[in-house]
């Protein structure tokens, strides 16, 4: 883009910048408005998740996983308990599986709502953001009704869940889904098809599939580049193989495949798929005792496990090493947002200052998970 070469200037975005989605510092080399290099500086939100885990018992790790990806705590919990159950060779009862899937998918919707809304905010549209937060609140209300917490649930435990669903959960959940489905169309009319929004996002920050794969980008960001990869389909964990749902991939709706608009659009489509899954799960959910398979003492055998699940940001992997004591030797979390952030430099070179924040927003990073 830049034809005239001027002096390079270092611009420091963050850590107290309104649209870095947390506390991230970007050191940006710019020539006027044109950006030539970005160096992300991490660690402002580091809370020693992995070191903490080595000092607390297995069940006490779960509240810490909540705090990693704080926008999708259910999915963080889910990944950890799935790995633990495989390590301990526990088969949880049917009802627990269904409850977990419902909660994880509702949380996926909530997380995408915030991601998409905050993206609108990055581009400058305020009203859709507030509308989306309004609907996210309703999901949080459902969570609060079920397990008492609105953000950090500590809901899924090894071998079960902390609380059974309330009596009228089905009714409330269906009511919410019926309310929410038409709202997606409203968001589309208000923001997605808005010509200014399309112009700002289409063709911007193109992430080609090969680059995405070489960086290890996963989840929505990878799917937007046209790669049909979803852990829920490829390596079905829990009971995801029972549900009928599609994996939306980027379709170059307005611009190039893998641009910011595609990443945004895949999230919108995924919300619809999640609604489908929740509807099916609510219809099929059996009765059962949720504490039936919960072990009295969590003391996994000696060994290690790596298991990945699909969080709203991508492949969320947990590596757990056990020496047979009630305290884990090592818990490592493979953070999908971290890999997404690492490709920021490559895809935003040559774009303008405004586009950098637009691209950063489209990657939908959560700093809690990056810094851990």
């Amino acid at each position: 883009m830049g034809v005239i070469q001027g002096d390079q200037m270092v611009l420091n975005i963050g850590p107290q910048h309104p649209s870095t989605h947390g506390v991230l510092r970007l050191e940006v080399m710019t020539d006027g408005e044109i950006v030539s290099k970005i160096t992300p500086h991490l660690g402002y939100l580091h809370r020693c998740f992995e070191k903490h885990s080595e000092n607390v018992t297995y069940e006490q790790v779960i509240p810490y996983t909540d705090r990693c990806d704080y926008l999708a705590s259910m999915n963080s919990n889910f990944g950890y308990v799935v790995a633990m159950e495989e390590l301990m060779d526990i088969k949880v009862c049917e009802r627990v599986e269904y409850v977990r899937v419902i909660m994880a998918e509702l949380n996926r919707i909530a997380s995408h709502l915030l991601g998409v809304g905050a993206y609108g905010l990055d581009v400058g549209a305020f009203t859709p953001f507030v509308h989306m937060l309004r609907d996210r609140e309703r999901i949080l209300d459902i969570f609060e009704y079920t397990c008492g917490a609105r953000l950090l649930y500590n809901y899924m435990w090894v071998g079960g869940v902390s609380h059974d669903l309330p009596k009228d959960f089905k009714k409330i959940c269906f009511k919410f889904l019926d309310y929410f489905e038409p709202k997606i169309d409203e968001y589309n009319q208000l923001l997605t098809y808005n010509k200014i929004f399309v112009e700002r996002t289409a063709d911007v920050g193109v992430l080609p599939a090969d680059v995405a794969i070489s960086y290890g980008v996963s989840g929505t960001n990878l799917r937007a580049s046209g790669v049909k990869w979803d852990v829920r389909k490829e390596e079905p964990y829990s009971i995801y193989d029972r549900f009928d749902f599609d994996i939306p991939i980027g379709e170059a709706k307005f611009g190039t495949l893998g641009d910011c608009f595609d990443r945004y659009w895949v999230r919108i489509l995924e919300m619809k798929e999640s609604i489908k899954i929740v509807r099916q799960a609510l219809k099929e959910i059996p009765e059962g005792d949720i504490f039936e398979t919960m072990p009295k003492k969590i003391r996994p055998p000696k060994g290690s496990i790596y298991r990945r699940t699909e969080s709203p940001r991508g492949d969320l992997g947990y590596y757990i090493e056990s020496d047979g004591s009630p305290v884990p030797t090592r818990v490592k979390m493979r953070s999908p947002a971290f890999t997404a952030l690492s490709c920021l430099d490559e895809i935003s070179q040559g774009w303008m200052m405004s586009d950098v924040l637009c691209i950063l927003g489209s990657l939908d990073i959560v700093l809690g998970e990056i810094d851990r």
Partner: protein
Amino acid sequence: MTIDFIINQFTEIIGNFPVAAFLVACASVGGLLFVLMALNAMVAVYVERKVSAFMMDRLGPMGQGPGLHAGKWGILQTFADAIKLLIKEDTIPKSADQILFKVAPFIIFIGAIIGLSALPFSSSIQAVDLNVGVFYIIAAGSIGVIGIVMAGWASNNKWSLYGAMRSAAQIISYEIPAGLSIIVPIMMSGTMNLQNLIEYQSGSIFGIFPNWIMFQNPFAFLAFFIFFISAVAETNRTPFDIPEAESELVAGWMTEYSGFRWAVFFLSEYANMFVVSGLAVAGFMGGWLSPIPGFLNSPVLGLFWFFGKVSFLIFVMMWFRWTFPRLRVDQLMYVCWKVFIPIAMLNIFGVGIWKLIFG
């Protein structure tokens, strides 16, 4: 109620002291305009808060006002804001250019208030009745950009500088389509005097529709549209708010300002909105004429019609702001140079031909 009128009254009552008469007239009119500016900002800020809240399914400010915390519509919210801004610590960065930093708010303020002084509030209420009123307001509107660049440069902050540069490019560019489209009413009425321009619009089309310039022919309507959008861009409002762009540039050229100086910027922004809306109303929407032809027209009611129309346009600006995302710098220039300017040019030809054919 022009300045001349006050000077004449002064001379009649007190005596022939031209300098004193001039100063008294200027001070009184200036004071009135400042009151108008402050009131406009007060009301507009409150309305903007409420409009944005209602569009977002919120309630907006509810606590401040008669019956504290009783949900009484928060009418006193802007007073609370104003008091907060006035008692706030006035910080000036150490590395800032002290003089320019202090002067910049006043230049922007002057740019806003001298624009107000030529607006025809009613057939008899106008600070100065200039024979080149349209031209004058367009010129006065571009003084502000000097203040913005000054503020951005003096702050010695990269965000401020970015904001100032963007603002300069934007305001200068958008003056061209605004100027080209305001030529249309001048061509049609043959005058640059705002009072004569409004009087030209009296009467009716087919006896029902008001004979406003924007309704007189399709080109004029297009011209109004372009003028209004360019005016939004000139006042740095969304979707053209790239100089402030809070998600990119923190607060743009106002990043380092706080307290009273920031309040002056704020006041000027709303005054600028009033000025450009006022010009659009006078040039295209019949100024102080009633929307129903020949009905309820009088100098006092004219005041009501004028303020009503201006408020409507300001509301539309708020409506824009709370609906649209923000454009990028190059897209902003695209819209200006490749869309608005060619169409505005063609408009001038169109209106000329229309006038030749239909008289």
